[in-house]
């Protein structure tokens, strides 16, 4: 995947040794990927695949030769994958103690509903937030 210098915008090919040394033009040391849509989709699949491999170690990444095979594998395990993600992301607010809170900004921004984990480990669902939120003018 090609890299672009964050400071001057010069583009380097994937694996260019100059990326490690810093930009030859401006000396910048930060680069970001330039990804086409196809590359991004393929990468996502690869990341998913790595997660699956961690879950089910009997299937190795090397054994999957083509993207079609990866896709077929995803379809088969779709349900399994969804459950794992859902189990990991539950509470948006965690009450650690009186006056100490931990907020998951990502979940708060993506979901309307508030799920609070109390300090005893129990969960509270904030009912009004489970219904469509409508701001009054």
């Amino acid at each position, binding site marked *: 995947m090609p890299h*672009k210098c*964050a*400071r001057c*915008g010069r583009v380097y090919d994937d694996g260019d040794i100059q990326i490690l040394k810093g930009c030859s033009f401006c000396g*910048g040391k*930060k680069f*970001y990927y330039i990804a086409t849509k196809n590359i991004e989709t393929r990468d996502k699949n690869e990341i998913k695949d790595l997660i699956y491999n961690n879950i089910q170690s009997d299937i190795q990444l090397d054994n999957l030769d083509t993207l079609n095979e990866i896709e077929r594998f995803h379809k088969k395990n779709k349900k399994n994958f969804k459950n794992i993600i859902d189990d990991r992301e539950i509470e948006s*607010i965690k009450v*650690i103690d*009186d*006056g*100490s*809170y*931990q*907020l*998951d*900004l*990502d979940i*708060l*921004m*993506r979901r309307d509903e*508030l799920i609070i984990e109390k300090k005893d480990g129990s969960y509270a669902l904030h009912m009004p937030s489970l219904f469509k*939120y409508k*701001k009054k003018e």
Partner: protein
Amino acid sequence: MSAWSSIKEKFWSFISKIFGDKKVKIGIYGPPNAGKTTLANKIIKDWTGEELNGVSEIPHETRRVLRKKDISIDVGKSSLKLDIVDTPGLATKLDYHDFLKYDLEEDEAKIRAKEAAEGVIEAIRWLDDLDGVLLVMDATESPYTQVNITVIGNMEARKLPLLIVANKIDLPTAKPLKIMEAFPQHTVIPISALKGENIETLYKSIYDHFR
């Protein structure tokens, strides 16, 4: 709202639509103590002469969303009408112990932490109702924080126009270039909201970006 003012507002919004005088609702977001309220006050003072809210060195001074309507900013011969929404600081951890060092009593600090947590949720709820966001960062701090990266990622997913403000450039340790390097896909405007440095560039960028 009385019936008369409601009719008046509808009439003016109708007139605005006909003559193309567009109004945009801009939210000021960012981590605590980045200077969000100082910037909101500066914008409002420059264009209306008023002030919106108090500022303090104690984090989470703004714990409710505050809104100032109908601020008209002039850039050259054109103008843009804004509603400015100042929001509480976004944070992932709110611990009352952090407030005790500012000479707050324990009870007071616990209430502050609770209100600040509610403030974060209120600020996030407002995102659905905005046309654009000014994301204020403290240029003396590292921009690679969970808050900055999460907020930018979410704004990009929402396709909400975003302008990054690198604040506090009047301080000798400020490094606005670091913010530019961290988020090269966005426009970054270095300013000092307190001293008013480069504020004209910000007004021009607001006009170009959110029009």
